[in-house]
């Protein structure tokens, strides 16, 4: 089976978490004897080739991060540029991920994705959903590295699963999401310990980026106040 994977993230490929997910997933496909080609919508030069591949092949996967409760606007623009009729039947499947770890956060977007294939004359091959992607970005942090590798290994296993079932309509794909909502004791632990730890981590990360302001800075309010003082 040959699979076309389209990265719907606007972030440049080099820093794209979605790209890391696609590479790990693709490894699983190849280990099972499948082949794949992939396109990144962040690079406009790939749009024509991505459209051509979308029309020509029968297995299409869109991989995307959750943006403001749904699909990133760049991917919507690409979708609106696709033909809505096709000569060969095809299946559209999705890999949806997001920064927060709760599955619940992504369900509305998943519903939107589920409604898409029939508008392009395609069938729906399911949606692989998992949160907690911020870990991938923290890959340079030694403590986070193991967790990140485990996460990406999970995608390789799902690549193998997709190769053998041809879709994400499986129990293992459903279980891949993890908890829908965090239980009450996680909320409690978060308030007591985790919150401070997470804040420290973010601040450490920001320092490495050369950030010189507090993360909760209010730059435009400051401008306004300064103007009022003058």
């Amino acid at each position, binding site marked *: 089976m040959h699979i076309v994977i389209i990265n719907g*993230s*606007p*972030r*440049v490929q080099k*820093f794209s978490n979605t790209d890391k997910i696609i590479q790990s997933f693709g490894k699983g496909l190849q280990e099972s004897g499948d082949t794949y080609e992939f396109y990144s919508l*962040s690079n406009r030069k790939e749009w024509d080739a991505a459209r051509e591949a979308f029309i020509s092949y029968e297995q299409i996967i869109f991989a995307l*991060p959750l*943006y*403001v*409760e*749904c*699909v*990133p*606007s*760049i991917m*919507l*623009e690409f*979708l*609106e540029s696709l033909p809505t009729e096709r000569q060969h039947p095809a299946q559209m499947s999705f890999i949806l991920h997001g920064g*927060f*770890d*709760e599955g*619940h*956060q992504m369900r*509305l977007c998943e*519903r*939107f994705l589920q*409604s*898409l294939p029939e*508008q392009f004359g395609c069938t729906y091959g399911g949606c692989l959903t998992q949160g907690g992607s911020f870990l991938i*970005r923290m890959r340079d942090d030694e403590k986070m590295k193991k967790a990140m590798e485990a996460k990406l290994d999970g995608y390789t296993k799902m690549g193998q699963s997709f190769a053998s079932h041809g879709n994400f309509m499986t129990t293992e794909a459903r279980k891949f999401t993890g908890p829908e*909502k*965090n239980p009450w004791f996680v*909320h409690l632990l*978060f*308030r007591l310990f985790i*919150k401070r730890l*997470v*804040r420290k981590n*973010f601040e450490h*990360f*920001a320092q490495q*980026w*050369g*950030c010189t*302001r*507090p*993360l*909760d*800075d*209010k*730059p*435009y*309010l400051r*401008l*306004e106040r300064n103007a009022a003082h003058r």
Partner: protein
Amino acid sequence: MTIVLNTIEEGAASEQISFLIKGDVEVVNTSGMKIAHCMGCNQCWLKTPGVCAIKDDYESIIKKLVDAENLWLVSDTCFGFVDWRGKRVMDRIVPMLNMYVEFRDGLERHELRYHPLNFGLLYKGEADRQFLEEWSQRVASNLGGQSLEVIKMKEGEPCI
């Protein structure tokens, strides 16, 4: 104050906007503005907190939102949802939040950088109303505010 981001062709929607959205309202017509897609670079959270790395016309919108209580999106629709032009101005709203995480209404959310914003949607075309209502609810919850109405615009009389 209420900010209306009109992503539909200027003029076409003005009458309905002024009829439906009352009070201290400023309408921003975005169709002639230079606004790029959010590129997810995270700089507004981790490098220059609150300031977007993309230098285009959206910065003036963020400056207005800092003073606003209500945000309305006026958008055309596609695939049952807001179209890419409407979604684009919402994806760029990220600097209004910060990187820190908290539980709000029992859900993981990013902290508000400034204050709560209520969110309303005025849409054009045949869309999935139920879906748009749920989406607006979630957007409002992200912004710490209430979901205002979701209103379908009247289509203009066809030209003879």
